[in-house]
């Protein structure tokens, strides 16, 4: 897998460096078509599984565009992390929840939501594209954080991450730990006693009462909800005469 990926990246990089304009343009056109088709598929698919697979298609297209712009390491990471981990996580959750069935996307619960959304997005897109025509995108000084040529992409990226961006890099480690802890806390079932009857039975068990060391009838029963257990009532009734 890794060898195939490396071969693909090397081949694509060599095609970039051969400076054939039509190769670049053709690659861009095919990748852009794949990206847009996948994106439209994500939005328009009725089945969430189809949406996830279309998302994989879009992510691969983005990876090709990364290679085309000499960001080969990011292309590999894009394929491995996004298409390999995140989409698998999506598919796992879809299958786990059992929502992999067709959804009626023709129903429109909020009246006028879709025309409004389409209008807003079209307005924003037109504004951005017009801005791209009239504005100068790249007016900043080049080489702020280091050049991107002269060395292999991975070397440059590694140097930059471990020198200039060391603190954010460490902060991402903390972020990932927090995310893992949050996911565990969310996935854990709530620790409330769903069956208080079992607790009462456990407390009434004389063996457990002895191991707890205290008086078996007073101390452990304090945190039990005030629902009388039938066996308790029977025991008191029997003990009364």
């Amino acid at each position, binding site marked *: 897998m890794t060898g195939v990926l490396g071969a693909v990246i090397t081949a694509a990089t060599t095609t970039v460096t051969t400076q054939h*304009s039509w190769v*670049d*343009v053709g690659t*861009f056109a095919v990748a852009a078509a794949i990206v*847009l088709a996948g*994106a439209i598929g*994500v*939005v328009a*698919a009725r089945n969430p599984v189809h*949406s996830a697979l279309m*998302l994989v298609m*879009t992510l691969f297209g*983005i990876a090709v*565009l*990364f290679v085309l*712009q000499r*960001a080969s390491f*990011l292309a590999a*990471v894009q394929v491995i992390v*996004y298409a390999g*981990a*995140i989409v698998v*996580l*999506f598919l796992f959750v879809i299958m*786990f929840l059992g*929502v992999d069935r067709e*959804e009626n996307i023709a129903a429109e*619960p909020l009246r006028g*939501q*879709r025309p409004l*959304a*389409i209008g807003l*997005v079209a307005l*924003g*897109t037109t504004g*951005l*594209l017009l801005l*791209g025509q009239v504005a100068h*995108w*790249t007016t900043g*000084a*080049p*080489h*702020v*954080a280091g*050049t*991107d*040529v002269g060395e292999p*992409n991975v070397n440059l*990226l590694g140097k*930059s*991450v471990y020198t*200039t*961006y060391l603190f954010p890099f460490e902060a991402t480690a903390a972020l990932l730990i927090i*995310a*893992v802890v*949050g*996911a565990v806390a*969310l*996935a854990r079932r709530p620790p409330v006693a769903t069956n208080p009857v079992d607790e009462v039975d456990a407390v009434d068990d004389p063996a457990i009462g002895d191991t707890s060391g205290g008086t078996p009838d007073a101390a452990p029963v304090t945190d039990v909800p005030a629902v009388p257990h039938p066996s308790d009532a029977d025991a008191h009734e029997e003990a009364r005469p």
Partner: protein
Amino acid sequence: MTINPDWYLGLSVVLFAIGALGVLIRRNVLVMFMCVELMLNAANLTFVTFARTLHDIGGQVLVFFVLVVAAAEVVVGLGIVVAIFRRRANATADDLHLMKG
């Protein structure tokens, strides 16, 4: 280097628009998450394009960080989705109004 960067930027604008449209009109929470990923990828494409245009490695480093944040976001978001689905089956975004005043 033969492709005009405007093409990449235009593509990422359209990709971002499609993602935003999906977040706005879809009701399935998982599909909305996927559309958020589309928007993140559009931003990543913009970063890489500017990194190439300005010959600056910082754009690619930023994409690296965006990838990490996207992974964390997906983990927490899908955990929330699983927690919601455990409480009620067949939840769409319209059903999640527990915090409505």
